[in-house]
């Protein structure tokens, strides 16, 4: 604070009039309110009403849909899609350790296990973060 005091008690104060305020023109508030009357009201209620976040919900649905499609194709129900999907999986397979995972009457390939695990982790993380920041925003 000594430095601040020194800064204030300096020669420049002889020239300036500290505290001298140039006031806004007359009628400014009225003009400003007129201008704001065409703006959408920044209401917080809409955000308060939502207890969920669209982003993680959409990403979870899309991810699960892709995984389901991958599982269906992987069981050989569609031959041409299966070939294409196999190529995609093979492109990612180098470097990944082999995981054998079998559900009753359903064989799940290696890459799908990774996708499912990652998706679930991302979903949980996303929801936790959204909940945390959503609570912070709504506190007054």
């Amino acid at each position: 604070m000594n430095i601040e005091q020194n800064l204030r008690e300096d020669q420049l104060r002889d020239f300036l009039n500290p505290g001298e305020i140039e006031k806004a023109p007359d009628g400014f508030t009225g003009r400003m309110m007129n201008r704001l009357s065409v703006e959408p009201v920044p209401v917080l209620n809409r955000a308060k009403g939502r207890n969920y976040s669209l982003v993680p919900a959409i990403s979870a649905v899309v991810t699960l849909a892709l995984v389901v499609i991958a599982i269906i194709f992987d069981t050989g129900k569609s031959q041409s899609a299966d070939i294409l999907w196999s190529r995609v999986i093979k492109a990612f397979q180098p470097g990944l350790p082999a995981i054998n995972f079998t559900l009753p009457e359903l064989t799940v390939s290696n890459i799908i296990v990774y996708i499912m695990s990652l998706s679930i982790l991302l979903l949980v993380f996303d929801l936790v973060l959204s909940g945390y920041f959503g609570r912070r925003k709504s506190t007054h």
Partner: protein
Amino acid sequence: MNKNEDIFLVNQVLGGNVNAFRTIIDLHKDKAFNLAYRMCGSREDAEEIIQDSFLKAYRSLREFRMDSLFATWFYRIVYNTSVSFIRAKKEIIILSGDCFPDSQKYSDTNYFESVSEEEHKRKLVNYALGKLSEEERGLISLFYYDEHTLAEISEITCENISNIKVKLHRSRKKMLEILTGINNRKVIAK
């Protein structure tokens, strides 16, 4: 205005009571105008700047964190809007008798004949302010005219306190050199 009043008024607006924003405007318009005017040097431009600033504040009111003062948050908007406005013009600020004086020929005799000492001082200050950058003018205004603390200025300008001290010291020195130089001799326009 204290933090509780800030929170109350902001919550009123966010709850749909737009008229509460009128109170916010009334409470902050003069200081905001003063800052914008000191930075840009023109009353017309300053009014445009604070109109834009209030509009930005209104639109982003939901983003205002209730743990800081509304004034600090809003003056940050005014400061940044002023800097952007001045830079966007990309011209040397036209100096006029109303703000930063034009390159007029001053002679001691004529100067003191035509204006009072108060007016002389005001024109001197405006002339010196015109020689500073927009950021330097902002610092001078925030520190000397609005009498903010260094911590508040740091929050408004989003610079750390050490930088603020250095820049303020330089701005003050530069301005003092101009003012004392003019005061001691004739000023001849180029």
